[in-house]
């Protein structure tokens, strides 16, 4: 079946602009995660959605970052007033449930470059 998809694949923006990154999880998966991969920081957790529960936003680096998940499916990560340090690959993952044994399946990522 279809895996996790993300769009756009690449995004180049100017410092100070807002960007939106989209994630379509595997159909039927109730848990959705955003991570960021950068050269200096490695792979970092950003935010976690599970069903109708309040999201875990503990990994968001600043209040410029926010995410929504509409209808329990598609998620959008928004970065306001982008900075050069936001340049990274943003990875989305989903799992069939929120249990700790569940495997997270990753999308191909969105490569963000802030000029």
């Amino acid at each position, binding site marked *: 079946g279809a895996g*996790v998809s993300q769009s756009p694949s690449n995004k180049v923006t100017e410092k100070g602009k807002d960007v939106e990154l989209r994630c379509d999880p595997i159909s039927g998966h109730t*848990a959705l*995660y955003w*991570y960021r991969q950068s050269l200096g920081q*490695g*792979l970092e*957790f950003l935010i*976690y959605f*599970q069903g109708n*529960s309040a999201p*875990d936003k*503990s*990994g968001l680096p600043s209040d410029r970052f926010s995410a929504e998940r509409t209808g329990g499916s598609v998620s959008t990560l928004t970065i306001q007033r982008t900075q050069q340090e936001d340049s990274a690959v943003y*990875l989305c*993952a989903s*799992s069939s449930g*929120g*249990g*700790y*044994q*569940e*495997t*997270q*399946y*990753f*999308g*191909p*990522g969105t490569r963000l470059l802030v000029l």
Partner: protein
Amino acid sequence: AQSVAQPEDQVNVAEGNPLTVKCTYSVSGNPYLFWYVQYPNRGLQFLLKYITGDNLVKGSYGFEAEFNKSQTSFHLKKPSALVSDSALYFCAVRRPGGNTGKLIFGQGTTLQVKP
């Protein structure tokens, strides 16, 4: 605090030889451990996981990993390396409890398999 260490930035091995990519973890309680592989410009692909039971876990593409509780290690192994195994490998841990299923990743190890 939870953490994962991959002590080698790069591992070089000749095709046909056995390979080992090392991972150690620090977490309170019983850990759930994962290995992922990342090919250039791609997302992370799941290889295998340890949840409970047999300490030797077999996964995709002929990879296996051994959980060693006393040494807090979860090294990835393959009996005979292929050139196509060359990629970036990540070890990750989750700790049961709390309200998040986030993965904590190691810094990654680049595996180079030479013909």
